[in-house]
């Protein structure tokens, strides 16, 4: 059903990018950075009355695994320079780093970055229209278009996507959606949510 979701995981097409593997052995994120990313992630998906937040799911550590193993060099570059940019944005808005901000400031900052990432995507989408037209004509001639390549996302889109993926596929996240490991049956019409 992935087709229906209409979303792709960043890094899914990077096998085409032709980058080398040279950084995969390095420790790319320090424990401090993991802690930092956990704070950012917690601002995106905080603990609520209903469920634990991203920090409880240690999403920062998941980000490290994904960036190390699944990101292309190009995407890693965007991700890491993004961490600097996030700090700069925080300095600019509040005259202090993200960790020094209170919850309200963190939230406001990330809402602004989310808007920036969405604008960036819109611009990218426009740039890709030509590419889409090219693909359309290749479809008309029956040729597959699996060689398409999409430009890297905005750094905050990466962080947000990793947060969502890392959270909702963690044990904590699965608990939040009421995941039952072995349902034992299928009921296609439940009138109250189980």
């Amino acid at each position: 059903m992935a087709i229906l979701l209409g979303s792709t995981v960043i890094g899914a097409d990077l096998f085409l990018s032709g980058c080398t593997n040279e950084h995969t052995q390095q420790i790319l994120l320090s424990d401090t950075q993991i802690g930092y990313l956990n704070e950012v992630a917690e601002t995106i998906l905080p603990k609520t009355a209903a469920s634990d937040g991203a920090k409880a799911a240690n999403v920062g550590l998941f980000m490290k695994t994904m960036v190390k193993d699944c990101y292309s060099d190009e995407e890693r570059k965007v991700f890491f320079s993004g961490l600097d940019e996030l700090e700069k944005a925080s300095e600019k808005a509040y005259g202090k780093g993200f960790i020094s901000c209170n919850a309200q400031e963190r939230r406001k900052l990330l809402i602004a970055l989310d808007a920036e990432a969405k604008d960036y995507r819109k611009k990218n989408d426009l740039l890709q229209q030509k590419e889409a037209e090219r693909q359309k004509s290749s479809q008309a001639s029956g040729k597959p278009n699996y060689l398409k390549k999409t430009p890297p996302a905005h750094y905050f889109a990466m962080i947000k996507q990793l947060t969502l993926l890392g959270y909702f596929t963690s044990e904590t996240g699965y608990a939040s959606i009421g995941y039952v490991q072995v349902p034992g049956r299928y009921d296609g019409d439940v009138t109250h949510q189980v």
Partner: protein
Amino acid sequence: MAENTYDAIVIGSGISGGWAAKELTGKGLKTLMLERGRNYEHIKDYKYGTKPPWEAPHRGSTTKEQQEKYPVIHRGWAANEAVMECWTNEQESPYTEIKPFTWWRSYQLGGRSTLWGRQSYRWSDFDFEANAKEGWAIDWPLRYKDIAPWYDYVEKFAGISGNKDGLAHLPDGHFLPPVNLNIVEKDIAVRLKKYYKEQRHLINGRVANLTEAIPGRTQCQFRDRCWEGCPFGGYFSTQSSTLPAAVATGNLTVRPWSIVTRILYDKDKKRATGVEILDAETNQTHEYYAKIIFLNASALNSAWVLMNSATDVWKGGLGSSSGELGHNIMDHHYNLGASGSVEGFEDHFIYGRRPTGFYIPRFANLYSDKREFTRGFGYQGGASRDSWSREIAELNIGGEFKDALSQPGNWNIGMTGFGEILPYHENRISLDPNRKDKWGLPVLAMDAELKDNEKKMRTAITTEAANMLDVAGVKNIRTWDSGHAMGHGIHEMGSARMGADPKSSVLNQHNQVWDALNVFVTDGACMTSSSCVNPSLTYMALTARACEFAVAELKKGNI
């Protein structure tokens, strides 16, 4: 020599090879099953199938290393961390794409039977008679009545769930209770039936998942994690079904890491005498001998084995005398369909995760429906509620955002078309004279493509999908067509087709190679046309049928 001699050799351990091993051992034949890849034991070797999903370190994403190692698998949806080791190492076993060809291979015990989509449909005489009626290629040497009892036979053992829908073009079978449609699908089924005056049907997917336990296997637990390996044996695979039955006879020997390089042929007796294998681990060559050989190496690799065999007698290999070996490559073309959103069911939810969805059987070019192309297509699809991966326009981050994503989103529905591909002589595979695999063996070169009939059909597939969603009241309908490289449908077939005449076919009506009657090919290679329904159930039935015939012929001394 005696220790290397068996009554029967089965080459390959996938769906059809597993069936051949079960049937032959069940009839008392000492049988050697050769698998070119690793052993892959039921339950024990299911790396993630027995663990909670959050224990996969990348939660399904593949690593950069895997992306580089398996570029073909990454063209489609099958690149998932949980099953990457089940796919063939593409660096060790390359192939040549004269035209784009996406080949999904699993070189391990059970082949693709642990990974398959499990959709199981019978063919009808609309399929078996189509070539003859239209003058396309050659006629099938059998009809529905010849295979119907064998469909019954394999369905009873494999365990196919489905509803008896009473459609002549999609015959009912021996079914376990169906996996249910959900409330949205049921509603749409009623609307389609009414609008199209019972000429189109949305039915329960018929699937090789157990809705009731059968001896030795537990019923499906609705985890929807089949391909990771099911510890319950809830779906049909070699491992869960045919292999334990074959082992229980005491007549089976399994040899993994055995690449069959050629079938040994005695030109005086005009019979195969055995096979030569290359041990994939030691690089040593061995010979094994048997009275009958079942070739079930998968549609394209079975042709490879034949093309690499008896070349001193026939330059093109064993079974090449007709000039059809390696030709007439087919598949089902897909990667296209339509989806949309459904309103009015916000208070209805789903419990459990189905291993299937709905099926819309073929309607094009049936009865009064006439098209500008020939043959037809079906759709697989499902309705469901959006998950956490959706976007929520009015929310961006925060607790409200998280709590909203934790709840099911809007209902949506989507369907993917699967279209028949005609057998074209010029769609072919051959041994690449310039390229070798890790073991120094020639690799296959693929030279096959969709032609006008398929392209016209693709336009109808998306148009009709959108039409049906529209009349069913679905909103925000969008269609997609991502193009189709041959092979991408994972239903490759036709490389050694059956026929009534040795001049135009590789196999006769009992799947015997015309040029060596004790060699039987019963996987996708044998197909004379492709229908538009998933083919595996037909391979099972043809295999069981051929095994019965083979043993009878052996007893009569005919082979």
